[in-house]
């Protein structure tokens, strides 16, 4: 583990990725300490200011400090990303391994469901759900979990299928090993590595999706700060001030770059053959 870390820091891009991720994660975690203002406190007097020493990124139309809102928005983004990817990973691995190792008919049924979910364009599916249930953080997480499960499930299935035809699995079967033992001891350890890399590279996608939904007003409820809702404010104010757009997009771009660089160097180190399009 430490060895991997050391090798990542040796690569310039890996190092940049690591620094960005650590920086943003820490600043989100410590938002309560670092943030100079309350992110939801209204100060109409200070509205629509440009950057200054008092307001590093300026203020929005309600006079809220954008820098503080960006810091707190990071908490929302990370929360959504970690919970939804964790859950999707768990369910995806389970169904993927069952599809890859189980009988053919079960595989077909699981794949049919995966394909069906995949055929909904994610954002449209998310909007339809939000329209029915109403916007909330939980809805966003649920939608992301449902729409990401097929991605992981398909990767795990493909990997399981290729591992399944290996001789060492046949050897375990011939020795009479149970299905649970084969999956847990022999398949899972060979699947999980590449999957973790994929998951780390998915974090930016999920964060972008959360921001997108909040941008459309279908994510977190105002006044909770989110990068997406800051951008939405920016969109409505686009002819007045560019700062909310800049403030909302900077962390979004930095964290996506950070996780992508990190994930890519991890992938190159651990499994150079793994490609994004499995």
């Amino acid at each position, binding site marked *: 583990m430490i060895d991997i870390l050391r090798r990542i820091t040796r690569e310039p*891009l890996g190092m940049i990725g690591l620094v960005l991720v650590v920086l943003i994660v820490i600043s989100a975690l410590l938002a309560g300490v670092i943030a100079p203002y309350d992110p939801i406190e209204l100060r109409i007097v200070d509205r629509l200011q440009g950057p200054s020493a008092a307001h590093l990124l300026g203020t929005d139309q309600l006079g809220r400090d954008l820098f503080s809102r960006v810091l707190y928005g990071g908490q929302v983004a990370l929360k959504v990303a970690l919970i939804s990817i964790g859950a999707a990973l768990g369910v995806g691995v389970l169904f993927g391994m069952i599809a890859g190792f189980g009988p053919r008919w079960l595989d077909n049924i699981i794949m049919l469901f995966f394909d069906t979910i995949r055929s*909904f364009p*994610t954002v449209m599916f998310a909007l339809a759900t939000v329209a*029915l249930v109403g916007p909330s953080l939980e809805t966003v997480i649920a939608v992301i979990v449902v729409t990401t499960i097929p991605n992981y499930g398909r990767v795990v299935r493909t990997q399981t299928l290729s591992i399944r035809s290996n001789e060492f699995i046949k050897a375990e079967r011939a020795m009479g090993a149970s299905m649970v033992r084969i999956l847990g001891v022999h398949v899972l350890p060979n699947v999980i590595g590449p999957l973790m890399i994929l998951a780390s590279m998915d974090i930016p996608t999920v964060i972008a999706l959360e921001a*997108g939904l909040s941008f459309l007003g279908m994510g977190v409820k105002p006044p909770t700060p989110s990068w997406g809702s800051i951008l939405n404010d920016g969109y409505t104010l686009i002819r007045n001030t560019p700062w909310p757009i800049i403030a909302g997009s900077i962390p979004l771009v930095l964290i*996506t770059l950070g996780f992508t660089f990190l994930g890519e160097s991890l992938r190159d180190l651990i499994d150079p053959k793994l490609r994004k399009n499995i």
Partner: protein
Amino acid sequence: MLFYLIKRLALGVVIVMLAVTLLFCMIHLVPGDPARILLGPRATPELIAGMSARMGLDQPLPIQILLFFGNLFRGDLGMDVITNRPVADMVFGQLPYTLWLIFTAIGFAMVIGIPLGCYSALHRNTLIDRVTGVLSVACITVPAFVVALYSLLIFAVTLNWFPAVGAGEQGNFWDQVRHIVLPALAIGLSWIGYLARLVRASMLEVMGENHIRTARAYGLPERVVVFRYALKLAVLPTVTVIGVGMGFLLSAALFTEIVFARPGIGKLIFDSITTRNYPVVMGSVLVSTVLFVISTTLSDLVNAWLDPRIRSSL
């Protein structure tokens, strides 16, 4: 071949039907009555019952689904409860805008991304390759709506080079072109990076295969090795990715249509969701799903056309 085609189409129909059923179940299962939500808190029970009947929600769920499919076969996607126009007309009226946008974006991404990827693969580890690599990652990771916002901010609002809203005047080709540039850029930018990286990776893989060594061992000029022997194989994964990418493209189109206030199916969905217009939501999601199924099937067929190994296994 014909057998395969029939199988694929049958599977596509099953997927679409399953998707519709899932949506119906979702509407049915989630708490809250769509008719009540649509009409607002002050609606009378009679009004709500009337609206439920108009939306077909008073029937039991299986009947609702059957009715929907029955109408579907007649090309009827139901009626818009607010304007009383057929949903099919609305959806198909908006669809061309979205399709034009998507095709322009992906075409533009292919024209730039694929050659860039090839160049990077063939000049591996040079400065240009590294710069392209970093830029590609940067392009991929920036969400489409952020690109849309920035291009709107810079090119439309600040510099005023391109129009900010709409799709342009009907029948005025140049006006339409001017209107499509920024939205297509917003969608296509991440695809340039994506395709460049994909083509680079698969080109490198193909160039390492034994048959390329053979082609070189027979002294074929490098140009022939690259363009005739390697490229055809290297673009195969691209076809699949674009086919599956229809979903992402539609999602990205939705954002850009909203940002640029451009007509299209994404904007239609968004507007009908904000007005809780379920039949329109249903119809548009269905059409998007069908688009996805068609594009994956098409990409499989193109793959089969390009790769004789797949062709003969069909």
